């Protein structure tokens, strides 16, 4: 029997997701026993042309991590889509844009200017900017920079999602198991994680008082955190209640508030909106001025509520797409 073929590809991401695969440790050998990896640029020397040669639909599953930032990403994921039975958005960036997605708060010009001109460490007196095509000595073509970062499912049809920044080895393993079991869940499902929020797994959930109401907003590096008490009740903006569980509440185990890398639950369409709504609900003030005071303590509102999900949110970002959005 021929082993199922799988492909792995890395778009706009930090590389953590690739690490996460390696983090499977000895289990990766089990994986290799079970499947044939036909494309994995970071580890294996297969080229895009090799993929192009494969018959359509011949790859069983493509694991794609990172958001779609460059024209090249777009090209390759579309190719993989054509060649694969299943496309899996692997990790937060691929599923919702991830941390790089916060770049969508700026448009292309602003980003370019910042990176190539304004950053203090840049030495670029001629203010040269990257071009898609350069014809000086030789002709060079670079992938184009898309107006904004997109989650995978806005570019190609996605079958499954594996959440996390990065997905924990446990989650990765469970999703592979699910895929290999032959008993596929409905399209669009999230693999390897829970249907309940982080609180469900969190040991501190039991320490919550009868009524959860908070009076202030604290940043974790500025307070002495009591590791035995629900962080929310210590005025730390824990995203646990609004974030999909399955991570094993790892951060909370070391008394760091959840930042939400497992993204929204099935019934939630806009992670940040829901997070803001939940925070607004438990903020225990009636007076507008008091509320203003608390809100002014947020150093970066979008960074707190939309850390991993801005490109997939209703807000999308700042850039206007052609044809309106």
């Amino acid at each position: 029997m021929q082993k199922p073929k799988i492909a792995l590809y890395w778009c706009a991401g930090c590389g953590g997701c690739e690490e996460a695969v390696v983090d499977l440790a000895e289990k990766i050998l089990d994986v290799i026993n079970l499947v044939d990896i036909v494309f994995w640029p970071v580890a294996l020397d297969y080229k895009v042309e090799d993929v192009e040669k494969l018959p359509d639909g011949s790859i069983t599953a493509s694991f794609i991590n990172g958001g779609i930032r460059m024209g090249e990403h777009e090209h390759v994921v579309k190719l993989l889509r054509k060649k694969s039975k299943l496309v899996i958005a692997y990790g937060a960036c691929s599923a919702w844009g991830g941390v790089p997605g916060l770049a969508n708060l700026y448009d292309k010009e602003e980003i370019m200017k910042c990176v190539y001109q304004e950053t203090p460490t840049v030495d670029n007196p001629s203010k040269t900017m990257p071009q898609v095509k350069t014809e000086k000595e030789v002709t060079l073509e670079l992938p184009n920079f898309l107006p904004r970062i997109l989650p995978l499912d806005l570019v190609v049809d996605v079958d499954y999602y594996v959440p996390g920044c990065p997905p924990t080895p446990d989650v990765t393993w469970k999703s592979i198991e699910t895929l290999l079991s032959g008993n596929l869940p409905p399209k669009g499902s999230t693999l390897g994680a829970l249907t309940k929020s982080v609180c469900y797994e969190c040991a501190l959930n039991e320490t919550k008082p009868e009524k959860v109401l908070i009076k202030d907003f604290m940043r974790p590096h500025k307070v002495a955190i009591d590791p035995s008490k629900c962080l929310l009740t210590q005025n730390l903006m824990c995203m646990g209640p609004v974030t999909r569980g399955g991570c094993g509440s790892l951060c909370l185990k070391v008394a760091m508030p959840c930042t939400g890398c497992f993204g929204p639950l099935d019934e939630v369409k806009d992670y940040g909106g829901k997070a803001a709504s939940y925070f607004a609900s438990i903020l225990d003030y009636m007076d507008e001025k008091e509320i203003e005071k608390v809100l002014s303590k947020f150093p970066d509102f979008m960074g707190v509520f939309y850390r991993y999900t801005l490109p997939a949110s209703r807000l999308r970002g700042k850039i206007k797409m052609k044809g309106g959005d």
Partner: protein
Amino acid sequence: MSEELRIGVYVCHCGTNIAGVVNVKDVVEYAKTLPNVVVAKEYVFMCSAPGQQIIKEDIKNFKLNRVVVAACSPSLHEPTFRTATAEGGLNPYLFEMANIREHCSWVHPDEKEVATTKAKLLVKMAVAKASLLEPLSEIKFKVNNTALIIGGGVSGLAAARDLAARGIKTYLIDRSPTLGGRAARLGKLTYTEMKGIDVFKGLIRDVAGNRLIDVYTNTELVSVDGSVGNFKVKLVKNPRYVDAKCNLCGECAKVCPVEVPDEFEFGMSKRKAIYLPFKDAYPRIYVIDMKSCTRCLECVKVCPVGAINLNEKPSELTINVGGIIVAAGYDPYEPKTGEYGYKLSNKVITLFQLERLLDSEGPTKGELIVNGVKPKNIVFVMCVGSLSTTPDAYPYCSRMCCSSTIKNALVLREKYPDTNIYIAYKDVRTYGRGDEQLYMKAGENFVRFAKFKDAPKINIDQKGNLSVTLFEETLQEEITIPTDLVVLVVGMTPPRDIDKVRTTIKIGCGPEGFLREAHLKLRPVETATDGVYLAGAVTGPKNIIESIASGSAAASRTLALLSKEEVAVEPLIAVVNEDICSGCAICVAMCPYGAISLKIIDKNIRVAKVDSALCKGCGTCAAACPSGAMQQYGFKDAQIKAQVIAAMGEV
């Protein structure tokens, strides 16, 4: 959903209310083009009997399984059309309403085309939502047919009297040691020869000893759980230290060494630490005021029947009732020291103190004596604490004071014909039956009226002589009235601790703290919390007659509830998806009705649980729920999203 959707759309003209602006025909034609719509019709008044008939027949003829009516506000006629839908043989919750009157024709009277487009959109949205509606059934509870009345003033007494007369077991609690409230302290009343105490006696005749009425004095509310038809109320009964053996011999008070101002007489006389609140107090048993008692035990020694027990402890009791009437009354506005010279001179008193002074059973046996002399010139200053006359005053009108002032002025003129009485007023609001005649009679009796706009000044000179200076608005002149007595006509304010009762029972209040009715005009004795009713001045200033009438009216509404076998509650309540709920408990704190708790389903796995009897379907929890586990029937995220998409297109 396996079943094929068959939607009927009905567009109402509402006379010309809608049809005058919206092109109803266009809307109907448009509706026919919407997905799953099998029939669309228009009619002049959909809410009328023939209009409803159309719906009922179409459900049968077209085998409809969803009904959409585009008409007025759902708050108005949703129940009407739900009933019609049910009578047509469908589940009533498979009905959806589009408001094309308040939301459309009334707000765009001059833009007919825009309004028509908007009406189409509203219909499209309703159809989109209707496609996702699910059949629901009403939630029913058995009713416990007993009632709790909080407050033993005249309105509470009237309510207890009337409920008991219809055979309803009633608990009447008051936190003071006697029933009677404030009306018992009033002197001669406006329209009869009766006094406040006579009204109290008249009511207590039916209440005292009534086997259906349990009276608990010195008793306060601790908590209220449950909901309409089934409240579980915890009370704490504070000790009286004297039991029913008391034979009213009064020996204890004679030997008691502690004297404190008598609150019944507004501090104008003294009482002992062991005392009978007033002559006709109910229950007629002495009581010890532990705040001032020195525990000298003199009374215990002297009591011939051994009725005194200084070691009595508070006791808690729990009762189950079907309905609650809050008749907590009011407090008179207490002027600050120095406001209108109050407390700077003992010649400045409040109207309530005057009532006591004029009462033959009051501290002066009915003689108006201030500082040992009978005042000759008396000035009443009205609207003290009301109508924003001073910065601390409330903006509202206290309603009863005008005629009460005039009544007292007439009583004084009759009793002391040579007194000169001035009434400084802002507006004479003798609105009640017979009050205008009273006002005229005051004129005939040479009670003089001076109209002010800004609060009069009370001048006290070094010798302690008083005068009142005011700018007479209708003469445009400042006048100074030398006087021997100033009566401050103080308004009514919400009772001081009402917020505790209010938050325990979970009812709303207005900006000044008076409790809020379910509807100011048509549901004046009901609250937004089903099964909780309001009586007397706790909703706003009232005179005795109005208080008694509202006590009876509250009893009437309560009786209407308690006459039922069971109560049905709209099923538009919150529901938890236990597969999603992680037990994060955010919703628990949000629920304004205390309807959500956490239940343990497996070892330490908890999920939220909605008490369908308590849930009012406000949606707060659904908005707060971080995981989307909490949804509200009738307004599920998917249904609302379908409407939004219908309106805005897919985003």
